[in-house]
Structure formats: C-alpha cells, structure tokens
C-alpha cells in the first residue's frame, strides 16, 4: 500500500475519525518494529542520491537483504490490519476494500493535520514529499574507535619524544555561545597563550631554537605585497577613527567656544594690566635710582617660544583651515577636466579589480540618479525600467 497511489476523494465522512484511532492503537503495539524497519529501509534507499558513499560502503551488502525484508513486512502488515480491524466480517475481500476506504478517509480528514502527525498515527508508508528523513539509527562504536587509536599509536612506534608532534592540551571555559564571534576568538587566544607557556618549557629542555633573529630572511607564508596591503588597511582604519574623534572635538569646541573666548580675553586683559604695572614700577625706580636698575626685559615675563603679538593656538588653526581650503579650491568639474588634460581620452572606463570593487555608481536610495556623470538619456532609461519593475 503506497501513499502515492491513493487518490483523494472529496466527499468527507465525519464518522471515520473514531475508527481510525482505535485501529491505530491496535496496530501500533504489534507492528512497531516492522514499521520502524520499513521506514528505515525506505529512508536509506531514498538517501541514495544525496549520500553516495553510504551506498557504496555500507549498504552494498545490506540492500539486497533489506529489499527482501520490505516485501515481507508489507505483506505481513496488510494481513494483520485486515484481521484486527473488523472481526465481524469474515471475508477477506471485504476487509481489504474497507481498509482501503478507511485509509482514504483518514487522509481526507487529516488534510487538516500536519503531515508529520499524520505519518505518526498511521501505518501508511510516507512518500518522499512528506518525508522528514529522520534517522533513528546512529552508530557510535566506542570500542572500535579506541582500537583504531591504539593501532595508530602502535604504528607510530614507541619512544616518541614530545618534539616529534608538539602537542599540548588546554581548557576552554564552559558555556561559550558559538554565535558570539568576539568572545570566542578572545577565549581561543587566551587558551593558546597558556598552551604556549607549557610548550616553551618543553622546548627549552629539548634545546630547540625558538625565536627567529632579525637577520634571518626566508620565504614567508604571505609575501611582502600582502603585508603592505594589511598595513595600509590598518592605517586607514586608524585614520578614520582619528578623523571622527577630531570632528567630535571640533563640534564640542564650537559649542563652548564662546566661553573659551571670553576666558581668553580675560587672560589677555590681565596680562596686559600686569605688564603695564610692571613697566610703571620700573620707571619709578629708574627715576629714583638712576640706571642701575634691572633691564626691562627681565621684568616682563615673556613665556618661552611665544611672540607677544600672535596667539599660538589661533595661528595653527588658521593654517590648517587654509590648507583644507586650498585642497578644495578647484571645483569637481575643473578637476575632472584637468585629469584629461595632457593625454586622457574620452572613454576612460576600465575593467580592473579596482573599478569592479568601487561602489561609486551604486546608490542605496531609489530617488537619486544612478549615474552622476552620464547623460540624461541613461538616467531616463533607468528610471523607466524602475517604474515598470515597481508596477509588477
């Protein structure tokens, strides 16, 4: 009895539910093992396309036996169903017909149920479409595995020193979440650092040289070109971070700029006062004593490396701003034309790795034009396409 062959009738019979459940209970108790075998056999056969090796290695000998078992089991199942379902009717033909009808009804009523529950509650062998392919047999032959390990160790030989395969074992903390990348990588690093300490002691005993001297040049796993790329990557990242921090600082400065300016003005005024007073004093003393007094310069305390007129901080800011402005005095249009000047051709498109990587021409926002420098025609075409796509 194959599920595939049965046709589904659209006439529903509400009373069939009760009978199916009783049938199921009776059948389950006696046909469990045979059902399991059936399921396993069919599952294994239907895995052929996906896992070829199992067929080659495992089931070459076993398939033949299983096919024979299948046929036997199916016949046995049918017979037992017929006998148990209706004890009143003695004719086997009637039993068979009624069985088929009831099973059809089972399906009709149980369309509303999930296919998985349906499979569990009936004896019908499920088709490939509804199969979840749940294997119930998993092999774990610990003895054989240990024997293999011992064989391998024997083959390697006794008296193997530690330096042959430098193996160390460490412990990881429990309860690591495999989805948390950052934590996992940190924990791995810590564990290997501990392992290295153990290894170092053993290496010292074995008198193996550990640290590579600076003179030693040899072929490395990554060539110089690759290391340059890595270096640039790191520098670029650092620059980005610094840039962001500077911008934050500037914004904050602007907010509190007025206060700072006011403080600065106050300080200037105070300095001026103090200097003027010092000069006045000096004049008085000079009048009194003559030219034996101290020099002017010693009285007025000029801070080191500071010219009295300009403030250092202001000067630096001005310079930076000028530089920044100088970078961008030319408009973009002018810059593009300058590039062409002196040999650039009209069509400068290239299919290099750099050009394929560049995200210049892709904009995430729908409303913006996709191609900045291209003509209106290209943009019109693109927008037409987009409109038609949206309609669909």
């Amino acid at each position: 009895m194959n599920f595939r062959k049965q046709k589904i009738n659209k006439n529903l019979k509400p009373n069939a539910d009760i009978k199916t459940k009783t049938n199921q209970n009776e059948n389950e108790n006696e046909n469990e093992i045979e059902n399991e075998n059936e399921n396993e056999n069919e599952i294994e056969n239907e895995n052929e396309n996906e896992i070829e090796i199992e067929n080659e290695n495992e089931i070459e000998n076993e398939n033949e036996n299983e096919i024979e078992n299948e046929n036997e089991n199916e016949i046995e199942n049918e017979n037992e169903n017929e006998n148990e379902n209706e004890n009143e009717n003695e004719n086997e033909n009637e039993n068979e017909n009624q069985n088929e009808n009831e099973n059809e009804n089972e399906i009709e009523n149980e369309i509303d149920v999930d296919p998985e529950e349906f499979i569990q509650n009936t004896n019908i062998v499920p088709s490939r479409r509804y199969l979840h392919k749940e294997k119930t047999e998993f092999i774990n032959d610990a003895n054989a595995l240990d024997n293999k390990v011992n064989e391998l160790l024997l083959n390697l030989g006794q008296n193997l020193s530690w330096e042959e395969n430098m193996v160390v074992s460490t412990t990881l903390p429990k309860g690591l979440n495999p989805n948390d990348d950052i934590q996992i990588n940190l924990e791995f690093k810590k564990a290997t650092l501990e392992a290295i300490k153990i290894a170092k002691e053993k290496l010292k005993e074995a008198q193996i040289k550990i640290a590579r001297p600076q003179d030693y040049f040899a072929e490395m796993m990554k060539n110089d070109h690759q290391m340059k790329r890595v270096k640039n990557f790191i520098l670029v990242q650092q620059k980005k971070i610094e840039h962001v921090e500077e911008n934050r600082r500037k914004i904050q400065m602007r907010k509190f700029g007025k206060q700072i300016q006011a403080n600065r003005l106050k300080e200037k005024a105070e300095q001026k006062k103090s200097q003027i007073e010092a000069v006045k004093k000096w004049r008085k003393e000079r009048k009194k004593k003559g030219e034996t007094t101290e020099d002017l310069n010693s009285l007025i305390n000029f801070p080191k490396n500071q010219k009295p007129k300009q403030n250092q901080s202001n000067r630096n800011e001005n310079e930076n701003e000028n530089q920044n402005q100088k970078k961008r005095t030319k408009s973009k249009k002018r810059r593009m034309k300058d590039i062409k000047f002196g040999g650039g051709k009209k069509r400068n498109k290239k299919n290099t790795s750099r050009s394929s990587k560049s995200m210049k021409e892709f904009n995430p926002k729908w409303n913006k034009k996709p191609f900045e420098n291209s003509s209106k025609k290209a943009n019109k075409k693109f927008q037409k396409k987009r409109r038609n796509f949206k309609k669909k």
Partner: protein
Amino acid sequence: MEKRIRNNKMKLQKEKEKEKEKEKEINDEKPKNEIKKRPKRTKQRVLMLSSRGISTRYRFLMKDIFSLLPHAKKDAKLEKKNSLTEINEIAEILSCNNCIFFETRKKYDLYLWLSKCPNGPSIRFKVFNVSTMDELKFVGNSLKGSRPILTFDQQFETTAHFRLAKQIMTEIFAVPQGLRKSKPFIDKVLSFMIVDNKIWFRCYQIIWKEQNIAQQGLTDNADLNVLEDENNLLEIGPRFVLQIVRIFSGSFSGSTLYSNPDFVSPAQIRFSQKQKKVNRFYAKAKAREQKQERDSQIVVPKDGLEDVFK
C-alpha cells in the same frame, strides 16, 4: 675538451675528499662500529586532492593549507567517474601516508576527508565558516614550513570519536622533524578547539617575549596593545569549523564507526526552508476551509424590528 677538463676536476676533488676522510679516520680514536644513532623519525606525507567543481574560496583554502604543510603533495582533481577508493592508489604511487580530500557538492557545500591511506580510518567532516589567509583582518605572518605547535582542547579526550580525530589530526598537521623543506624556528600555533560539538581551527603567529620588536614594521607594539613582558599571538591563517559527519574504519571505505546525530545535510536544510513556503499555502487553504465552515454555521438571529421600516 671542456668536458674532459671538468671530469678531471671532479676526479681530483674526489681524490682529495677521500684522502681527507682517511686522515680523519686515522685521527679519530672512536671505533668504526659506533655510528651516530639518529633518533627515530616518523615519516608522514600528505596527499592533497580536491574533486571537480571546487569554487574559488575553497581553492584558496586548499592553497593556504598546502602552505601550512611542507610535507604535502598536491595532485590533479578527482573526477566523478573515479570512485573514492582510487585515492588510495594515487597515494601509493606518490608514497603518501595520509590524505586530505576536499569534496565539493553543488559548488557550495564543502566536505573534508582526513584519512590514513592504505588501511587506516578516515573521517568525513562538513566545513563551515571558511576564512582564507587573504583577508586583511589576519595580520600575522610566519615562516613557510616552520614546525607548528598543536594545541587541542581537553574535550578531545572525553569521547572516543574525538580521540580518534585528535590522533589523525596530529599525524597530518604536525610537520615531521628533519624534513627537507621545514624551517628551524618555531613560529606558529595551530589550535583545535571544541565548541558546540564542532572543531574550530585557528592558526596564530607567536611573538615570543624575546622578540619585542615592531613586527615587520607594521606598527609599534603600543598600537597592538602588547606588554613587552609577555608572549603575543597574531592570527595568520585560514579559519574554519568542522563538524564530524561519519568515521569509517577503512580509508574512504569500510563500515561506519561513528555517525553524528547532530549533522543535518544541507540539502535537508534547503528542503525544510522550501517546505516553509509550501506550508504557507496549505495554511491559507486550511484557513479558507475553516472560514467556510464557520460561515455556514452562523445563524443570524432574527431582528424583531426588521419589518418596521419596510
């Protein structure tokens, strides 16, 4: 004429060497019977293969692992027509003990086989989360062919299948001493850790305490947040996660010794994802039928005031 001169030179050199040896023998007081005993050295050679239909990312992985193992030999791609047992023959020809086989299915499922070639056991892994050496987040670099330190998690010793996996992986990934292409200093660590019943592979460069120098002019130690009194690790190389699918008693053949219950084949995953879409249709159909039933059972009570305003 030139050849004759060369040959004569060679002959002279040989004669000189022989004389030197004789002098040494006379001078040496040791008897001839005492030959220097070389320590027992294991011979491990690894054969690296892939199947046809391998994609770029896995090809680069293969290349990276090949650079990790100086005792490895590459061979041409294995076609589908040839069954897996032919790998054993190829290994015999190339005199290889071990084999690493990259099996790709449908161009994006990678299965890794590790096996001891003529008789020994073999393991089939499913590979996840591959990152190759080419990525810029891997900052470290080491000598090509230096012997690595292998670190295994302690969980490898709890269960039998992990013990076998550990034994096979030490024999494959550990570079034998005295190998021609191997380099002297110890530069790297390969770490195999178990999280979530899967084996996580990492490869790090070691910067020992004594080497507190700016690493190849990259950046100062201050930027790498390194204290000068400690060893440091920088990640070099490929990264992947392995899940055991099956362990076989022979190489690419034989009975299974272990099959993993957690393993769900990617085809099954895709199937179940499609089934979700299908079940949406069935749910709608079900809801429609139920609605029809409910509607048929609705009995609107008669309003006494219906006929008032007719």
